[in-house]
């Protein structure tokens, strides 16, 4: 996934674009996340200024939600569903397999920055469990073979 390097001008433009909405902090953070791949630290005081909030308040929101990254993820993000429906369908073994094959734990990024492996709690695809999401693409009825194909794709 392509993300821009930090740039204050771009950040200002992102803020200006979303600022007019009611309760605009989450939309702003989502937009930042999409542009930079994370919420860069220098963006926090800028957002705080624009919304008349304290830096602590913005920091509090950034750190509350799982989606807002402090550091950019790897080139590919593989999310494995770890919730009950996927557990019932064999998700535990698949998560262990993915971890072992990539040599990283859930929540970590591979040393070469190729892939970030993350747990996700439900993609709403529970009738085709176990499920995963690779860079926004959903995959169901996972088994060892389909998982391995995903892992190969993710390591590219």
């Amino acid at each position: 996934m392509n993300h821009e390097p930090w740039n204050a001008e771009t950040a200002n433009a992102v803020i200006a674009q979303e600022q007019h909405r009611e309760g605009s902090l989450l939309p702003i953070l989502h937009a930042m996340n999409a542009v930079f791949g994370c919420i860069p630290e220098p963006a926090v005081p800028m957002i705080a200024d624009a919304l008349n909030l304290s830096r602590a308040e913005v920091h509090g929101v950034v750190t509350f939600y799982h989606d807002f990254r402090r550091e950019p993820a790897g080139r590919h993000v593989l999310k494995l569903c770890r919730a009950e429906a996927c557990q019932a369908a064999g998700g535990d073994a698949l998560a262990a397999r993915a971890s072992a094959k990539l040599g990283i734990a859930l929540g970590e990024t591979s040393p070469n920055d190729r892939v970030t492996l993350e747990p996700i709690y439900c993609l709403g695809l529970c009738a085709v469990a176990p499920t995963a999401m690779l860079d926004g693409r959903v995959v169901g009825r996972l088994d060892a073979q389909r998982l391995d194909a995903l892992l190969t794709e993710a390591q590219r």
Partner: protein
Amino acid sequence: MSVRLFVPGDAGALAVGADDVAAALGKVAARRGETIEIVRTGSRGLYWLEPLIEVMTPAGRVGYGPVTPGDIESLFDSDLLTGGAPASRISLASGFKRLLSGGPHPLRLGLVDEIPWLKRQTRLTFARCGVIDPRSLADYRAHGGYKGLERALSLGSAALIETVIESGLRGRGGAGFPTGIKWRTVAQTTAPQKYIVCNADEGDSGTFADRMIMEGDPFVLIEGMTIAGIAVGATKGYIYIRSEYPHAVAAMEAALVAARRGGVLGARVAGSPHDFDIEVRVGAGAYVCGEETSLLESLEGRRGIVRAKPPLPAHHGLFGRPTVINNVLSLASVPVILERGAAFYRDFGTGRSRGTMPIQLAGNVKHGGLFETAFGVTLGELVDDIGGGTASGRPVRAVQVGGPLGAYFPRALFDTPFDYEAFAARDGLIGHGGIVVFDDSVDMAKQARFAMEFCAIESCGKCTPCRIGSTRGVEVIDRVIGGVDRAANLTVLADLCHTMKFGSLCALGGFTPYPVMSALTHFPEDFGVTPPRLQAAE
């Protein structure tokens, strides 16, 4: 003449290759010189048959599934475009192949409406899902859409709220609060601005009905919200969709644009004096934001910290204004109630659970999917008969009903009828209608531990029983599993669950004891406890 084919664009179907199937259909048809039109629909909810493709024939829509791209060539050979009936002009090749195979294609399911799993259902909320083109307002109207709004406008606010109250509709998010009463409370307030908020933060594992409706019939939700707006005098609505549902977000956004263009959203809705518009907001991966007050905080741009009640959102909701906050399914059930009348809806169901419930069968289940039916069907019928048992073929040992905060039920309780009160009477809840099936390989102590762990990960941190209790809960269960002072630790666990249940601010901490205690009560052997002692306490 062009033949209409239907391929689901629902995320559940995409996850098993629906896009590849659609592409293969196009390619093979082009090569064979056939003119086809592919309509991307939602899902019918028969997920074990996805990708399920349908073809329009004079007799109705004929289905095939589960289809892979590799099947397309043979489907064309078996007269896919006429639904399996040999066309009047049979090509030599296809006629020959049919003769050889001597029967319909193995993936042919016949008329989709006649598939028993679908025919047994009572589809009121999901009547159009999987049938229509979710991007087409014209298709929605052609299938009865916006009749509810029309009726709502002719009734006026008071009578329309009365209709919703009389229908017996209760909150489908899980709490089961009467929807009409909530609306009346907001209608009775005076404020310069009121809001309709749709809770589409469907975080419970084993549930996907909200996602299906948003992807398969988004206009029904828009219509339901618009009716709510007219009822209470709100001009602005928000749909808070979880970020794990990008396809639902896209479908809703597209439908909102189409509804505005069609004059049924925005200024002077459908030529009436009412203004109403809707905006989609995307969550950011916090499960607790499915709790209504936490969701409102999130919409306001803050941490999703639960608010103490009272004041109720109906009085002080979004930005401190009177707010109706309803689940997707509650709002999506409103149009049919208005169209057909309160009595029509209320006549389905049992006891104080009126109407239909879209039940979702998931996990290790043979026939997983969405089954909308009147309240009252038993858990056993749902799991064994409709669900067909496990996908693994092993015996069903436990089912979790109502998401991560719902109780685990053993086979012994499979006679429980699916309704709010019957489940509550057995220390469970129906929640958002999800049923997750587990076979006999499940370790229930591990599931109990996961319930506590999940609560610890997702706790908003405001109240102590939830924030601290969940972490202590994981530790105590670890000690029980490890055989450390087991009897004493089980007493601590029961005490901890009691504190969480009665001392937590919201359902996250308050309901986490349900899966934990139900696992312990019904499956003590998994905790290293000899069954008789605990069963006596049951």
